[in-house]
């Protein structure tokens, strides 16, 4: 998973935080304040009583920088657990994309063919537009969007990556 270009790797980091006001701002502020990248970010409460949220950040950096990011996250008071999913073992990472394509005629047919090949769901349709829903690895959604763009006006909404370790490992 972790591709390496000039010593940098992509890391998928999940943190379990108290679901309190400002906690997301703390995490984002840490990244911007210290000059780290955020490629994608997701957040939602995950406990039955909504008391804790899980934030998943996809970031890039050298091993040292990734370690620094984890250590800096560890300083934030409302953080319970931190997992570097891409380093700790196999994991699944998924993203959801909603892709609107506005087209008529042959491009519209082509869009349908591509959607079928990607097993994208059609969640909305008009005479001149589709909204496709696609779930999968970020690269798959990238590829789908690349194919759709030339076919007409496109509008993209992506969820960011949600990720979880395979097997019995947890950060609950």
């Amino acid at each position, binding site marked *: 998973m972790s591709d390496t270009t000039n010593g940098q790797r992509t890391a998928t980091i999940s943190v379990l935080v108290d679901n309190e*006001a*400002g906690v997301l701002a703390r995490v984002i502020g840490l990244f911007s304040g210290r000059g780290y990248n955020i490629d994608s970010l997701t957040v939602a409460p995950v406990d039955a009583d909504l008391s804790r949220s899980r934030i998943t950040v996809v970031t890039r950096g050298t091993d040292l920088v990734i370690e620094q990011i984890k*250590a800096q996250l560890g*300083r934030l*008071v*409302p953080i319970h657990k931190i997992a570097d999913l891409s380093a700790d073992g196999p994991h699944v990472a998924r993203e959801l994309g909603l892709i609107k394509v506005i087209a008529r005629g042959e491009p519209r047919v082509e869009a349908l063919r591509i959607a079928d090949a990607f097993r994208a769901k059609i969640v909305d349709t008009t005479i001149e537009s589709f909204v496709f829903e696609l779930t999968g690895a970020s690269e798959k959604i990238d590829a789908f969007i690349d194919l759709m763009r030339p076919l007409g006006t496109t509008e993209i909404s992506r969820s960011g990556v949600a990720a979880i370790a395979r097997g019995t490992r947890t950060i609950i």
Partner: protein
Amino acid sequence: MNAEMNHAETPAAGAQVLLRALKEQGVEVIFGYPGGAVLPIYDALFQQNAIRHILVRHEQAAVHAAEGYARSTGKVGCVLVTSGPGATNAVTGLVDALMDSIPLVCLTGQVPTHLIGNDAFQEADTVGITRPATKHNYLVKRSEDLARVVHEAFYVARSGRPGPVVIDLPKDILIKPAPYVEATREPHRSYRPQTEPDAAQIDRAVALIQHSRRPILYTGGGIINAGPEASALLRELVAETGIPCTNTLMGLGALPASDPHFLGMLGMHGTYEANMAMHGCDVMINIGARFDDRVTGRLNAFSPHSKKIHADIDASNINKVVTVDVPILGDAGLILRALLERIRSLNAQPDRASITAWWRQIDSWREKRSLAFVQPDAPGSIIKPQHAVRRLFELTRQSGRETFITTEVGQHQMWAAQHFGFERPNHWMTSGGLGTMGYGLPAAMGVQVAKPDALVIDIAGEASILMNIQEMGTLAQYRLPVKVFILNNQYMGMVRQWQELLHGSRYSESYSEALPDFVKLAESFHGVGMRATSVDDLDRVILEMLKCDRAVIADIAVDQGENVYPMIPSGAAHNEMLLGPDRHHNNTEVTNAGMVLV
């Protein structure tokens, strides 16, 4: 529980609950400044006697005063300011405390909850503004959270790596009744910093120490924060092993300056022997210091031949700047104890002969006498600033009184660090990480509040002192006999020095034009003013100052052209120090890479 219910008291107002929680947390003094949003707290303060309030003249000073109080007592300092401008004025102090790991709780007023976000009068997004300026912050939106948040804030401020915590208090929360809860043993759901070191890491460190031939202890503010026991353990470790020891600016006092194992401060303006020993060591034992850029000099030339042990309470400090061989996470005191016990039980002291040879090498570096200066003694000679600090040190020592030194920021700060000998921890307060001009006077005020009978001296520059000079009023009001000892070189000396060395002596905007008459200024604030203009006056003025039981400003006219040496120029390595204007050890040209550094 039932007993309490039987009192059947109507629940107290939020402001009362707040004060009760502060009392339970051991708060005796609050440094603050009132305003509309915190009037309910001031009203509650008026009706009690347990907590003393010190009215400062500017909110920044309240925070620095609380820092001085915290650093001299080991307690959490407490600040109270109003919403909007009160909170924004406090921000510099908060960042200062964050950088130097000082435990504080700062209470800020806020507009009532229903007005938050409406651009109400004196509304500021205080939690937003202070989020990167604090260790943690809170906005109390529900009365039932109030007491718990206060307890939690104190726990967070003092635990792990200490730091400032803000509690933003909307006015309605202060007025509405709020339930009281006592502090619990589990003060926070998740925050539990690791203090006990890992035994395996201790063993690895001890093995490195045992086989070292040229070891050095490099210790910082972490030892001071770990309490006086940690400093005592450092002394024991040094005595047990004979290892030379250098302190950072924040760590001065951990090892007595008079201990023969003490190499002085290290870093940009550290001693030649400390920096050369850092450069030449084979095992570096860093305890509670963070490889600050003022300490390391050029990183790729930093102590190139050593194995490095780094003990720190904050995991993010480890491998942040310098990669180390043995990281140890935990409290400096507990780590020192573990190291000492292990070394003793294994008889793992480094080889005596190697240590002796290492000391011979260090002594030859010491012979450079890198802190030497020449004070002309002909009558009427201009005072060298180093001489002024030396005399201040010697005369305060002879007075036998417990002495606390604070500083402002600039050359005088470095001369104070170099020439005033600190024998004990917690007696030296300076703004290290942020380098905040205007820190010293309010910090001294906070120390004097905590230590009413001690001698508290702010070694100041004539430029810095003007940044919080209004606190002379606070000194007068509370009869705090703080001594301000100005090394008046009529320049922002540190700026002038850099301009001389790096910018072709173009002294752009660094002359202290239109200075006040500091003697009259002291008098106008009901204090005592003194002045020394030549070396003949110096001792007399110092002695008079020490005798005086009121606040004093002693304006000491010093040599305007003096620079702080030794100096590692920006971007240079430890072994490329400038020893003095005509004592260049190496003719170090400042590189372009060095020019961009601060």
